[in-house]
């Protein structure tokens, strides 16, 4: 596989970039498209080149993470150009979900605790997004998203402050109570939240003009399709993952893992346990709120009953199946979510169940609940953990030979 490590040979990189530009210019119909495609290709190649440079992960870990993020986001953005509107929509929903999963993964990975209320925290973000947009339509999307994140963090602080100071299942129980209560709370403030009916955004978030005018041929994709929203979601997801990867690797992150593994030792080296646990919980709530806010953006509306206890359980199942405490686990879980409805309806048709029947409507819960149990019993680190184990196993085997 040595030929893959082309980052060690700058000449190859340059040649590849040049070739890509030529191909792009030749195959696309207009100059603007050609420029766009060649930029995308060049970024991807540069990113891969950085990643494959010798020793980069050891010497410049942050740069390597940045390169990985930029490459992945670049490729995903490029792909949305070709996907159908439905695929893009699913992708956006799944990407936003993976942000939520990442937050939960961090909470467990860092503090050994778990939240059963991240669906409700998503709801907090989703509602703040819609309420703010209804009152201040001119605020840029990025700012509104940030406001939703801060709101989620604040609610997290409120709930997490007492529970995270305790060991044991207090946080889980409390967040469960919050999740069960969420729809009731939304109805209490129905003049703000619109109650069960929810809220519409005043207008679909439009793509900026300079971007639309840049692409001559595919304008309609931007304005009418979901591609623009998908692209925003992908960029935000990239930023969220990059930030989290750095947090995982930082001193704070390491200190938190120390807490999870051995809280007595952590206390001895001077890590403040309650503070670290509260921070982890706040980060997880903020991430959930961000995911919820993106859902509002993608759907152009918010429907509070979506954010039920069942959603919280789905979130838990996804991250457990993907690999709790890991970063790739969140991505895997998000992908599963994007396609789970398809898979479940496929199962329904394959088994000849009546799609309107009792059993088919409960299939989702039964399958996710069952997977939750089975994964926790037999592969507690989920898919990501299993893959990593296989990988390490293979590497040590080759190293031994």
């Amino acid at each position, binding site marked *: 596989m040595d030929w893959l490590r082309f980052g060690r040979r700058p000449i190859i990189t340059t040649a590849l970039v040049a070739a890509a530009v030529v191909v792009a210019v030749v195959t696309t119909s207009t100059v603007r498209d050609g420029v766009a495609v060649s930029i995308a290709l060049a970024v991807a190649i540069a990113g891969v080149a950085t990643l494959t440079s010798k020793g980069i992960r050891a010497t410049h870990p942050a740069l390597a993470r940045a390169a990985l993020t930029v490459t992945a986001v670049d490729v995903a953005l490029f792909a949305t150009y070709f996907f159908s509107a439905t695929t893009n929509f699913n992708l956006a929903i799944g990407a936003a979900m993976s942000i939520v999963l990442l937050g939960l993964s961090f909470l467990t990975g860092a503090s050994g605790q778990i939240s059963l209320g991240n669906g409700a925290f998503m709801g907090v973000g989703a509602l703040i997004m819609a309420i703010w947009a209804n009152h201040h339509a001119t605020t840029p999307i990025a700012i509104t998203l940030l406001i939703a994140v801060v709101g989620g963090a604040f609610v997290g602080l409120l709930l997490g402050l007492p529970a995270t100071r305790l060991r044991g299942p207090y946080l889980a*129980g409390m967040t469960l109570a919050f999740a069960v209560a969420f729809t009731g*709370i939304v109805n209490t403030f129905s003049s703000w939240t619109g109650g069960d009916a929810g809220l519409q955004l005043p207008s679909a978030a439009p793509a900026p003009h300079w971007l639309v005018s840049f692409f001559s041929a595919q304008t309609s994709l931007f304005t009418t399709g979901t591609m623009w929203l998908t692209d925003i979601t992908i960029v935000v997801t990239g930023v969220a993952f990059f930030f989290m990867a750095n947090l995982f690797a930082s001193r704070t992150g390491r200190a938190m893992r120390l807490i999870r593994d051995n809280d007595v030792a952590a206390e001895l080296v001077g890590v403040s346990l309650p503070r670290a646990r509260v921070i982890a919980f706040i980060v997880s709530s903020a991430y959930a709120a961000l995911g919820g806010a993106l859902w509002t953006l993608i759907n152009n509306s918010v429907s509070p009953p979506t954010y039920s206890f069942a959603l919280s359980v789905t979130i838990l199942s996804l991250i457990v199946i993907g690999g709790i405490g890991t970063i790739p686990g969140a991505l895997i879980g998000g992908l599963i979510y994007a396609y789970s409805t398809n898979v479940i309806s496929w199962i329904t048709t394959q088994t000849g169940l009546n799609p309107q029947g009792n059993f088919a409507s409960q299939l989702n819960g039964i399958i996710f609940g069952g997977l939750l149990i089975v994964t926790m019993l037999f592969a507690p680190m989920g898919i990501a953990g299993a893959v990593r184990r296989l990988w390490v196993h293979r590497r040590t085997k080759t190293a031994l030979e």
Partner: protein
Amino acid sequence: MDPFLTSRIVSDILGGLTNGVIYGLVALSLVLIWRSTGILNFAQGAMPMIATYIGMVVFAHEFSYWPCVAISLVVGFAIGGGTERLLVRHLYGKPEINPIVVMVGFLIVLEGVAAAVWSTEPRGIVNPFSPIDFQLGGKPIAMSAFSLYEVITAMVVMTLVAVLFRYTKLGLQLRASALAPEVSRLLGVRVSRMLTLGWVLSMGVGTITTILVASNFFTGLTPQVMDGIFAFGFIAAAVGGLDSPVGAIISGICIGIILQFVGDFLNSNYIILVALGILIVSLMVRPNGLFTKSSVRRV
């Protein structure tokens, strides 16, 4: 005092008591399992729900109310024991989140299966107790034959559990197994059996609670009938201290009464918010619960 206000207050206390004993029972069943196995059973509402469906719905055509109650109880015991032996046993000594996640998964599976088999339509359970409020001086008070039945049953169950734990050889062994499993084994106590028995007992309490809730003319039995009540029960258990059975019962009753006042004098939408508020404040003030004497931390 204004006679109208007085009767309102009396009604709230009586209505709150009826709800409160239910929360207290749920809290008690959670404490039984927490003390013996260190697990907070998130399926504590769903497991007896299945037993109640089997006893009170499947057999409703053949038998009258009381035989059905007996069947539900037996099924509840069996579900408790079976779950401990087949599922929970693999979770002892694992990281704290493993049992939480597994029991949440179990909750979802059980609720899904129940909805698949019996649908989500509420099933009324015909019982001998009238839901119509008693009259006192020509005015109704918030106490009916049915709520009297609820309160008395709850009191009897609580007393039985207390007597069992405090005054019997079995209770001594159950408590010892929870406090010091290894020492208990050295003294000949069959600790593993005691753990199973803890789950069996807890499911007995849970099944009686679910039957009481589902027999209510205004509620009926649904797969998710215990979800909200579980939340209140957990709040009561956490406020009272997960280690304290007495605390669980007392705080359950207090929370029931307080929330009844909130619903009557403020707005019923505020009930759950106030309940969360109570939980947050009490955990801030007394993290180990209002009724836990020692601040022993389970590690």
